[in-house]
């Protein structure tokens, strides 16, 4: 960050002129407006279809993201290394303004398709991201994923000219007007610094969990550096029956439980069954938690008697 522009100094025993005072305010206003222009924050998350078989059910092709905050998708990167019998893929979304993006695959070679648009999400609304595969026969998808770039807005209050106590020619410099100007300016600085407007999403995905199988120790954890990022809310989504529970545990790096939001609606954590929407009411957490160092996310389930689950994923909604 660069330093502020040069300061106008006022000298003792000299006449205070409106020109000089206005110049000082003008420079201060320009500095703040420059900061306000940096109102947008960006984050990204990745959705992965690697290993998806052609025998998969419809829900295996869909990710459901139900963020408790407003965001825009401003770009995507669709990457695929294809697979035998696969000729192409495309990605569509329920988001308003999302442009369906397609690519022609080449087995074993990276093919990239990008999209730049303005697709809007409403806070608490579910957004679906659906992959469509065209093929000439049975397949198991090679490495295939979607990078989604989000934009969030700190929504600062603008500093208007009316907020600046410029002094007109011939007007006396009123102390009260100047005081109001300083106070208003401080409120605008504070509003440009909305700490709760940098949102991000992390998705932890597992596919093809066999019947009666637990999730191997090697495959069930995800470690996420905290670095000041706070946990807002979470979702657990899987394509099995609700009784075929997937359990999410969040601890810190020492194994101590990280207390998650309790206002996640039905389910603890929220669940869904295949073919329906995520059934919780997703709202902002009133309090956020973050460990000193790392989050440790663990996906488990009881193996004995459990049916196969073709897709299970956790979605973490973070702040900061």
């Amino acid at each position: 960050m660069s330093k502020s522009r040069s300061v106008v100094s006022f000298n003792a025993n000299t006449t205070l002129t409106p020109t000089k005072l206005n110049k000082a305010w003008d420079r201060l206003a320009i500095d703040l407006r420059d900061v306000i222009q940096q109102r947008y924050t960006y984050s990204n998350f990745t959705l992965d279809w690697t290993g998806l078989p052609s025998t998969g059910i419809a829900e295996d092709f869909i990710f459901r993201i139900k963020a408790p905050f407003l965001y825009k998708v401003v770009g995507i990167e669709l990457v695929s290394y294809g697979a035998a019998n696969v000729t192409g893929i495309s990605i569509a979304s329920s988001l308003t303004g999302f442009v369906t993006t397609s690519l022609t695959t080449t087995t074993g070679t990276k093919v990239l398709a990008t999209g730049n648009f303005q697709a809007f999400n409403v806070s608490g609304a579910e957004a679906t991201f659906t992959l469509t595969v065209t093929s000439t026969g049975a397949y198991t998808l090679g490495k295939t994923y979607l990078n989604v770039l989000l934009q969030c807005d700190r929504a600062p209050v603008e500093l208007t000219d009316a907020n600046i106590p410029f002094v007109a020619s011939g007007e006396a410099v009123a102390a009260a007007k100047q005081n109001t100007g300083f106070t208003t300016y401080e409120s605008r600085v504070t509003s440009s610094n909305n700490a709760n407007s940098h949102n991000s999403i992390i998705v932890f995905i597992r596919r093809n969990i066999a019947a009666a199988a637990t999730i191997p120790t090697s495959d069930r954890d995800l470690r996420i550096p905290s670095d000041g990022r706070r946990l807002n809310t979470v979702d657990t989504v899987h394509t099995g029956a609700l009784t075929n529970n997937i359990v999410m545990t969040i601890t810190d790096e020492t194994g101590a439980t990280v207390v998650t939001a309790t206002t996640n609606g039905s389910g603890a954590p929220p669940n869904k069954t295949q073919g329906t929407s995520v059934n919780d009411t997703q709202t902002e957490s009133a309090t956020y938690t973050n460990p000193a160092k790392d989050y440790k996310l663990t996906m488990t389930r009881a193996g004995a008697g459990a049916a196969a689950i073709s897709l299970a994923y956790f979605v973490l909604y973070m702040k900061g």
Partner: protein
Amino acid sequence: MSLTTLTGVISSSALNNNFSDKLNSLDSQAGSIPTFHQFNIETLDLTNAPAAGTNIADFTAPDDLELWVVGLSMWNTNLVSKVVTMTLTAIDSAGTSVTKYLLDQSVTVNVTGATAAEFNATRQDWSSFSGTKVFLAKGVTYRLTLTCSADTVDRAYGFIVTRVRRRRA
């Protein structure tokens, strides 16, 4: 420093104080919210000859980013000692590595799995790194690559965390 309430005849010192106070407020708050991005790579059953793309994750930097944390973990239940490496490179549109947008820095991290050890991990805090900082440039595509020295590990998982600082125009 704090605002001086102006009354009556406005003094130069009070004006100087108040303008300075607002500039300080702006300087401190404008850069006080670091925002972080995390990019992950994961390969289940990583071999020393992985199938195309399975050990690679590409992403385009959404902002100008400073490398903040680098982490790599491996789960190894095989009775073979091995080294897993994660490398961060910038790539061109053909997927060829270039160094220009990494400021000629090389970012590589290793984890050595001892025989029969199940879990090994490293976490490097580049935030306190006293050497040359590494920056990722907005709009440039970067690649995380996992390699395994021999045989297979059950899982390799790596990440980088990057930090954005707000900038004045």
